[in-house]
């Protein structure tokens, strides 16, 4: 059995009194491409933001390599954060810095390397995502797909063991989105990185996912988990079928 690198235990997320996710449990294994699915507003991004320690769980805990990320503080927290890379829905590149500076920032922060070697590392990461030649551009000069790729390069800057991607292909055309999927698969193969990806792009899911969990707005929990193809063909839960087959109630009935 592979190792579990992330444990989500009896986890509940809430904004004030408004409970978004209630009492869920799951694990992510080392090196897998794990996808969180669900309709709009079911708490996918909320779950991801809890997993990277931006929010504290209302109940339960999330362990990243055995450490509770919500309870860690100071150096302990930074040790955990150094090991994870995050790419946000909007890319979240720093607008006042060039693409290269965006990638060098985390490296400068945590290593004592010379400027020359830091630049080289950053250029290599940008090369990996196909952005060689755009190093000196400002984020505002990039297209949507390039921003997402630059964000991925920044997330990989410190060679983390885990990458968290929030809707990496949202708002991209099918070709760019397929390229991004290929990139993820390639990185997973060559670097052995564990991916946790939030998405609702069906094509991406079939392409990338080793295992998925599906959240549901009404039950506030996980309604299905497993391999995407298996869920598509075997799940008897109506919402899961609707999701994978892009159908409405009526089509299912008929």
């Amino acid at each position, binding site marked *: 059995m592979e190792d579990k690198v992330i444990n989500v235990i009896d986890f509940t997320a809430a904004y004030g009194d408004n409970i978004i996710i209630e009492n869920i449990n799951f694990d992510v294994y080392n090196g897998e491409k794990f996808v969180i699915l669900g309709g709009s507003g079911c708490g996918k991004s909320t779950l991801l933001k809890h997993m990277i320690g*931006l929010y504290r769980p209302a109940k339960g805990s999330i362990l990243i390599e055995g450490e509770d990320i919500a309870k860690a503080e100071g150096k302990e927290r930074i040790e955990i954060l150094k090991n994870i890379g995050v790419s946000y829905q909007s*890319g*979240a*590149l*720093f*607008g006042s810095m060039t693409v290269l500076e965006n990638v060098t*920032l*985390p490296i400068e*922060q945590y290593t004592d390397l010379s400027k020359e070697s830091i630049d080289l590392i950053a250029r290599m990461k940008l090369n990996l995502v196909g952005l060689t030649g755009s190093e000196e551009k400002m984020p505002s000069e990039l297209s949507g797909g390039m921003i997402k790729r630059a964000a991925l390069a920044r997330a990989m800057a410190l060679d983390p063991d885990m990458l968290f991607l929030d809707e990496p292909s949202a708002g991209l055309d099918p070709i760019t989105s397929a390229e991004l999927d290929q990139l993820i698969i390639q990185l997973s193969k060559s670097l052995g990185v564990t991916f946790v990806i939030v998405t609702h792009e069906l094509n991406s899911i079939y392409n990338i996912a080793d295992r998925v969990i599906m959240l549901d707005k009404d039950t506030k929990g996980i309604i299905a988990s497993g391999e995407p193809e298996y869920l598509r063909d075997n799940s008897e839960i109506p919402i899961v079928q609707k999701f994978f087959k892009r159908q409405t109630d009526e089509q299912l009935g008929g």
Partner: protein
Amino acid sequence: MNKADKISSLPSLEALTEDNNTLRLKIKGTLDAYTTGKIWNDSLVALKNTKPKELIVDGAAIDYCDASGIALLVNLQLRQEKSGGSYKVEGLSDETNKLYKLFDPADFKEPGKPDPLYSDNKIEAAGKLSYQVWEEIKIYIVFTGRVTVGLINAILNPHKIRWREVFVTSEKFGANALFIIALVNFLVGLVIAFQSAVPMKAYGAQVFVADLLVIAYFKELGPLMTAFVVNGRSGSAFAAELGTMKVNEELDALDTMGLDPVPFLVIPKVIASLIMLPILTVFGNLFGLIGGLVVMFSLGFTFTTYINQLTTAATFGMLLSGLFKTLFFAVIIAGVGCLAGMRASKGPSAVGDAATKAVVIGIVLMIVVDGLFGVIYYILGI
């Protein structure tokens, strides 16, 4: 059905009471967003007047119906069910029926009103409000602490300061503001000198306008006017910058890189403000006095008289006491601006709200601090 047909057939309503307990509403014509209103009230009135046990809506003669028409059907159903009667729709075309089936009337029931005893509890409301105010104050106290720690760390490790950011901000904050600072202070100096010259003429004390102006300017007007203008320019800009970063998840990204936004984003701005605001204030004082000079010229005094008057009235300590205050104003402008930006909510108006908040809170805090300094200086005899 094309658009012309739809417009041509206005809906009509026929209310038939079949026996004492049944009301049949026959609807004819087009029910869309433009025409449904024509029979909306009539149908509700018919329902209200007859209060039938059974309501049948006969839609056989409806030639077109969109979601607005469905809203009428749902409304009738809800009202009928509320008064305890039964409800039936007949004769809808397949197309309309499909649309009708999309909406479950149960989803549109008015939510129950909250318990008035509970929501009107004044003591509880007062408690909640004071709790919120306290939480707000706490945020400012914590933030002040973080900025102070950040500044101390910056002084101890000056190589860790992002100097490029400091210089870029200094240029925007200081150099680019020089013209407006000069203009505003020149005009304020001119107006104050002129307004005080008029009553002083009655006592033959016009020459003392210079004394009044320089004391007012060095102690209060120069620092305050300059800080207000800079607050409007840069405090709002800081809030907008950080607010946009918040909305774009850039602050989250910093957080997950383990970078604290205070030393990374706030401290460079605070340092730039600390350097530039006193310098701007010196220029503000200068241009305020030039404004006074213009008035003094027009009253027939010479340049030498004006300068003599200034040098006898003003002291170096007076100038310094004013400049010392600007250090606090500088921290308020940068700190409040950045904090407002970091606390921006999500959504399109968030950044604008943050900028407004930064300017308003900044001005209020500066006035309060200025008042405190007035008291302290008075007690110290400065």
